[in-house]
């Protein structure tokens, strides 16, 4: 399939001036600034086919937002190129941005004091959306994002969830081909998150919009994305389908044992028995249930089960499938070679 987004060896460096503490440090910084270069994005290459929803994940400070800012033309890359729908964002910016929608969850792009309805009217002019299209579009966005209840309120009076929906609607007003969402669900409650996910899914399904979203919430990833790109310290550490991630790195299992006598819990000492570290295994207890989460590379499922059964009386047991969250935690801890 043809690629909508294409990034080749993108890099972005920021210069940071390091100031030593105290007056002496300030004076020194003035005459001989000690500069440190932060490699926020350190050679990232990836592409996104038309119509895909790509999840962009990684720990705080990994460089996700910086990549988004380069793709949207806000930042000029230190080196490397990106091309979206055949256009280079930094060239001919004004024409390029007509084709994209951008939302930064952390800060609104709307006018603080304008009523939401007025805000959209101004954006309509900025993007030159014709009257009939605008009306249809507003009806559609109203329905998908449920804006009706607050459309006459000034943006400053909206709750975080309302504001986020308002921002997403604003980014979709001109029917962009590509939608960039940086942390679109940050700080929201479950109901709003669900609403936003549905909206993203619908826009993607009905209009074939290509979407890149960064998130901390792994349910966003599981519910929305077929594919993820994971970055850490400015570098790409994984790029592939979620099923692939599970297959290749899914060596974490969770076993739940329901004990006959819950105080028996004390008898179980997996770490000593199998000589394991905190990274290999974690044990939680909830009343009569013991939840053992472990790495199958360090200890097998069979060993855990037979040790447990031979040590305590077990009423019931179940095996939980690998959770993506576990894999990602491991990847963050850089335990997986890529």
């Amino acid at each position, binding site marked *: 399939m043809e690629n909508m987004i294409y990034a080749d060896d993108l890099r972005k460096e920021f210069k940071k001036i390091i100031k030593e503490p105290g007056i002496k440090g300030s004076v020194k910084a003035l005459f001989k600034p000690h500069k440190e270069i932060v490699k926020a994005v350190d050679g990232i290459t990836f592409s996104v086919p038309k119509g895909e929803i790509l999840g962009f994940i990684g720990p705080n400070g990994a460089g996700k937002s910086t990549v988004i800012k380069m793709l949207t033309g806000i930042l000029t890359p230190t080196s490397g190129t990106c091309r979206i729908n055949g256009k280079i964002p930094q060239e001919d910016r004004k024409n390029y941005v*007509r084709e994209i929608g951008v939302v930064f969850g952390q*800060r609104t792009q709307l*006018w603080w004091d304008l009523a939401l309805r007025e805000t959209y*009217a101004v954006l309509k002019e900025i993007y030159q959306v014709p009257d009939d299209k605008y009306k249809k579009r507003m009806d559609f966005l109203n329905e998908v994002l449920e804006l009706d209840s607050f459309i006459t309120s000034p943006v400053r009076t909206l709750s975080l969830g309302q504001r986020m929906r308002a921002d997403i609607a604003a980014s979709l007003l001109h029917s962009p081909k590509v939608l960039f969402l940086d942390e679109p669900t940050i700080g929201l409650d479950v109901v709003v998150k669900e609403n936003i996910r549905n909206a993203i899914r619908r826009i993607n399904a009905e209009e074939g919009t290509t979407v890149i979203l960064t998130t901390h919430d792994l349910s966003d990833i599981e519910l929305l994305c077929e594919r993820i790109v994971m970055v850490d310290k400015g570098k790409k550490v994984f790029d592939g389908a979620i099923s692939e991630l599970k297959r290749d790195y899914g060596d974490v299992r969770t076993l739940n044992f329901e004990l006959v006598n819950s105080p028996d819990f004390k008898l179980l000492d997996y770490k000593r028995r199998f000589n394991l570290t905190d990274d290999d295994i974690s044990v939680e207890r909830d009343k009569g249930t013991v939840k053992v989460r472990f790495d199958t590379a360090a200890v097998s499922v069979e060993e855990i089960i037979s040790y447990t059964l031979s040590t305590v009386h077990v009423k019931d047991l179940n095996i939980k499938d690998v959770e993506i969250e576990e894999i990602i935690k491991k990847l963050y801890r850089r335990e997986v070679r890529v």
Partner: protein
Amino acid sequence: MRYFRLHRIFIAQYLKKLMEYKADFLLGAVGLLFAQAIQLIFIGIIFSQIPDLRGWTYEQILFIYGFSLISKSLDHLFTDNLWMVGYRIIRKGDFDKYLTRPINTLFHVIAENFCVDAFGEMLTCVLLLCVSIPKLNMPFHWYTIPLWIVAAIFATLIYTSLKIITAAIAFWTKSSGHITHMLYMANDFSKYPVSIYNRFVQIVITYILPFAFTAYFPASYFLTGKDPLFCIGGTVVAGSLLFALALFVWNRGLKAYESAGS
């Protein structure tokens, strides 16, 4: 055309917002009017003691002062948001949104805000001109009014361009409001005849920060009819050159913009 339309829309939105914050607006305008009144009383006191200054009469000085407020107040009314660019918008990363919209960034950021406080200055301006002009025997031709308009436009362009340049410095330094502030202190020199200053100040406000072309030079042409080429032509040239420079610096700044980490 599209930009004019957008500008109208921004103004309309601004006025709506104003209605919401009536008290705020009134306070601002009254405050500025008050500040202007104090300045005027100050000039009045000085000139009631000295009948003329380096060959300029009291009325002529009032005229030059009033003329200086034309461009100053126009710039103040329309481009006040540039202050915010230097103080806050770039540093906080709020400039991002302008870069994701399909219109000129400079136009967008300027059009977004109006400063009705400037009406205080405008009122003073009109007052000073109305008081001084009848007492002055100024040359008048058919082209005098068009020249006024040209002078006002390019003088405003001088102000605005200098403000654009100092605001754009923040693209590299993150914050440059203090530089714009210093610029505004220099512009105070332009309210009075340039001839009262020493050589150094004269050169600075004529050729480096050409504030003299926002008031003294064009005003002295309208007063005396002498030197139109230098006085009005100079304003046009200074305004055009500075505006070209401002656009250049702004566009380079956009490439240097670093946004802000979150």
